[in-house]
């Protein structure tokens, strides 16, 4: 399968933060969700992918091309949505369109009009009067109006109310049904991923924790609940991390079938949410340290 985004051993350090030997790939034609807490390096990674930051070391290739030689070519094929307003606030959407359309060789006014109508966006109101939801829809409209093959979004759903969020995700859903696009977006709202993500990349403290298919997560991971007496040195090894309480233990495993084999009916096995996985994986990393 073709990779649209490829980061290999990327290092980037700032004062008080470091992306360490970070490698990841995003596959063509799928939706990949990029999850992690606040300040763990999601935006830094997206800025590196957008060439807004340059890595200290390591390589980044988009569509198999590098930014050094193919910057404009790559950017022609990317649509982007950031979590804050990046447009000129004192302009209207029509004026903004006039400025941005000149940058893209594939700009399509019909597509622009289609999304403006679909999102019920005002064309002649100043952008600074837009609500957060309208802002996101305007960004997405512009991102989708030049037939981009890759859509990169940094926390597009944060700050949106639940109805808006559903609408936004629906648009992405429809987009994936009809066209051969690749979507990569970061979020810390893990329920966003349940409905649309094919792949999930988990980052924590500047390190890549895992990349997995959503279905694979469902097959492999499980939340296990049982009596504390069941835990000993051997059984503990099967868990990523364990939380004990007076009522027993609750733990995350990445090997569901093995647990079923080991404990049978003695434990309760539940489907984990992505939030559970994030929580226990993070805890586990601290635990092992």
């Amino acid at each position, binding site marked *: 399968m073709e990779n649209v985004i490829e980061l290999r051993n990327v290092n980037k350090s700032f004062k008080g933060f470091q992306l360490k030997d970070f490698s990841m790939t995003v596959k063509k034609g799928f939706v990949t969700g990029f999850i992690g807490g606040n300040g763990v390096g999601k935006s830094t990674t997206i800025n590196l992918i*957008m*060439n807004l930051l340059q890595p200290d070391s390591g390589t980044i290739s988009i569509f198999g091309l590098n930014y050094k030689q193919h910057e404009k*070519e790559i950017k022609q094929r990317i649509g*982007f949505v950031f979590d*804050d307003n*990046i447009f000129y606030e004192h302009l209207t959407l029509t004026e903004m369109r006039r*400025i941005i359309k000149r*940058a893209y060789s594939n700009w399509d006014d019909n597509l622009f009009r289609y999304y403006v109508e679909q999102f019920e966006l005002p064309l002649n109101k100043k952008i600074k009067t837009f609500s957060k939801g309208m802002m996101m829809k305007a960004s997405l409209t512009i991102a989708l109006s030049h037939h981009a093959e890759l859509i990169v979004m940094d926390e597009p759903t944060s700050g949106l109310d639940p109805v808006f969020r559903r609408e936004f995700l629906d648009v992405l859903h429809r987009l994936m049904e009809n066209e051969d696009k690749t979507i990569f977006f970061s979020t810390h709202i893990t329920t966003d991923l349940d409905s649309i993500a094919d792949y999930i990349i988990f980052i924590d403290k500047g390190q890549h924790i895992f990349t997995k298919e959503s279905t694979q997560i469902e097959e492999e991971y499980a939340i296990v609940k049982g009596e504390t007496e069941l835990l000993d040195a051997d059984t503990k090894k099967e868990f990523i991390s364990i939380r004990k309480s007076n009522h027993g233990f609750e733990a995350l495993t990445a090997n569901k079938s093995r647990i079923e084999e080991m404990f049978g009916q003695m434990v309760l096995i539940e489907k984990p949410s992505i939030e559970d996985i994030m929580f226990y994986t993070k805890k586990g990393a601290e635990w092992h340290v």
Partner: protein
Amino acid sequence: MCNLIWKDIVLQKKGSLILLPALFGYIVYNPSYIWIGFVFSVVIILDVFAKDEDSAVNKLLNSLPYTRREVVSSKYIGAIIFTLLVVFAMFIGGLLFHREVPAWKETMLMVSLSMIAISFILPFLYKFKTQYIFRAFLFLFVVYMIVINTFIKNLNDILREFVQTILTLQDPSVFLMMILSIIVLYSFSWLLSIRIYRNKVF
């Protein structure tokens, strides 16, 4: 890159409609083209720059299919275009109100002064924020006041004489030298700004 320059002109359109009557007003009462042209050019170019200074706008421009080199170069080429537009407006104003156009030497001097000022200001702006340039202006003003009050009391006369000397110069080779050195200075500033902007974090 032409798109970026075009964008600046479009964004500046409204501002120019306010500045144009002001420019004509000055020309009516005081046809000192060098000073007026210089001030208007620099003010317009600074205003153009200030509009793009926001980190969000930088994020936009650099996510669009432009290179950082183009973003900086558009400002340097745009600065020359805006200066020439001011010259054009001065010619129109001169013809309208005084039935004469500014002398070519005055125009040359005005364009040169703008280019020199821009050569110093733009790299500074790429390195620091606009708020610092006001502090820098204030600092220069204080230095200027100290110099004329304590060290060179007739600095203004010297400057005036210097301008007069340039305007009365007849030797074309001196002009050529001046133009060449300004071009070198401008190009150096241009390259320096590209260098500063290359790794800037927004």
